[in-house]
């Protein structure tokens, strides 16, 4: 059985059943996944949504009439594959809580203020080198009901399309040195320490803009297509 994208790469992912994350207990498959070869259906993927991305959709601080409350930040980086090649023309969508740790969502009842000038969603398309950039507000930590005194580390959700449907990725970007890391079952659902570290952005002083915004770098690494597709036998 052969694959075009290495399945070995998938070892970086969380274990589907991570009992400390209680919601996974009734939603993770109990039966083993069935291995299959990639066919054209898996090796192709959508190039879609790009045409409706407008200038400014990657700046979450200018979507409303006033300035959002909180710490303005720049988040940028490259979408690459695991061989280091930039992934151009990749749609990157983000969503996040506001600076108080509150989502614009009817089911988020955390008693923290909503910000009329921040709704927390943005999107952009990576350039020819795979580079992307957002301006946003640093999200706050927020409590959730998973366990006693459970708080999510500050994070930004990201959704990325690569070159194919098997490189599809939804992940969360975290901030360096967050004291909540040891206590968060979602962050710790990734067993490998080095893989967990890849979800943590780096403070980027060089691209921090004086008098305006701190900058964080977050490179998103997708599975890499084998340079020479293997013959299938």
């Amino acid at each position, binding site marked *: 059985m052969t694959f075009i994208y290495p399945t070995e790469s998938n070892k970086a*992912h*969380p*274990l589907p059943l991570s009992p400390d994350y209680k919601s996974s207990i009734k939603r993770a498959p109990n039966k*083993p996944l069935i291995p299959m070869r990639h066919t054209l259906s898996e090796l192709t993927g959508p190039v879609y949504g790009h045409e409706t991305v407008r200038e400014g*959709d990657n700046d979450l601080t200018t979507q409303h009439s006033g300035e959002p409350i909180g710490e303005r930040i720049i988040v940028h980086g490259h979408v690459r594959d695991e061989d280091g090649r930039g992934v151009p023309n990749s749609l990157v*969508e983000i969503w996040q809580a506001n600076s108080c740790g509150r989502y614009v969502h009817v089911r988020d009842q955390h008693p923290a203020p909503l910000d009329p000038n921040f*709704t927390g969603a943005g999107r952009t398309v990576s350039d020819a080198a795979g580079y992307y950039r957002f301006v946003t507000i640093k999200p706050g930590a927020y409590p959730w009901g998973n366990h006693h005194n459970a708080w999510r580390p500050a994070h930004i959700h990201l959704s990325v399309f690569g070159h194919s449907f098997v490189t599809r990725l*939804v992940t969360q970007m975290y901030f360096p*040195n967050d004291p909540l890391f040891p206590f968060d079952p979602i962050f710790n659902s990734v067993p490998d320490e*080095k893989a967990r570290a890849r979800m943590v952005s780096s403070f980027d002083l060089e691209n921090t803009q004086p008098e305006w915004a701190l900058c964080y770098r977050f490179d998103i690494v997708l599975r890499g297509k084998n340079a020479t597709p293997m013959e299938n036998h």
Partner: protein
Amino acid sequence: MQDNVKDSGITPSQTVGPFFKYGLTPNGEYAWNDAFTNSTLTPDVSGDRIRIEGRVFDGDGVVVPDVMLEIWQADAQGRFADPQDKRALPNASFRGFARCGTDKDGNYSFDTIKPGVVPDPDGKPQAPHIVLAVFGRGMLRHLYTRIYFSDEAGNADDPVLALVPADRRATLTAVREADRAVYRLDLRLQGDHETVFFDM
């Protein structure tokens, strides 16, 4: 975490969480959500127009109101709207991708066309199918499955269905309703009739 523990693997997946709707799925807070709908239909598309409907259940048989489904499929001629597929696309605006969130009762639906036959890596025909990715709260990584169609004779020879134990193939087969072009397929994340998910 310091840079010196970083290395070259891929970025791990994390759950979409419960609060993705305003950022990703149709009818959220943002005008741009019209970028993604639960329809692949375009004015010039050829082929049989169909609707796929179903519900999503967890391991307790309870409906799941906060998953997002994405479909990816070939056109009626079995061709993908992807630059890697070099065959000419007769339906220039057909994109083959759609996204849907479940509602409070766990319902999802897609309006699309019946896809054509796509070859497998050996060049053998695959039965018409749609690739489906399932994202949700409680799901740390999205799951891949396929939608096949109950009225396709080619299912019997499909190389991917052949990998699936016979008694589980029904979990991948959308059943056509008697009097209209609607196929029903429920997804079960867990349990006795758990949907088949693929490792790829």
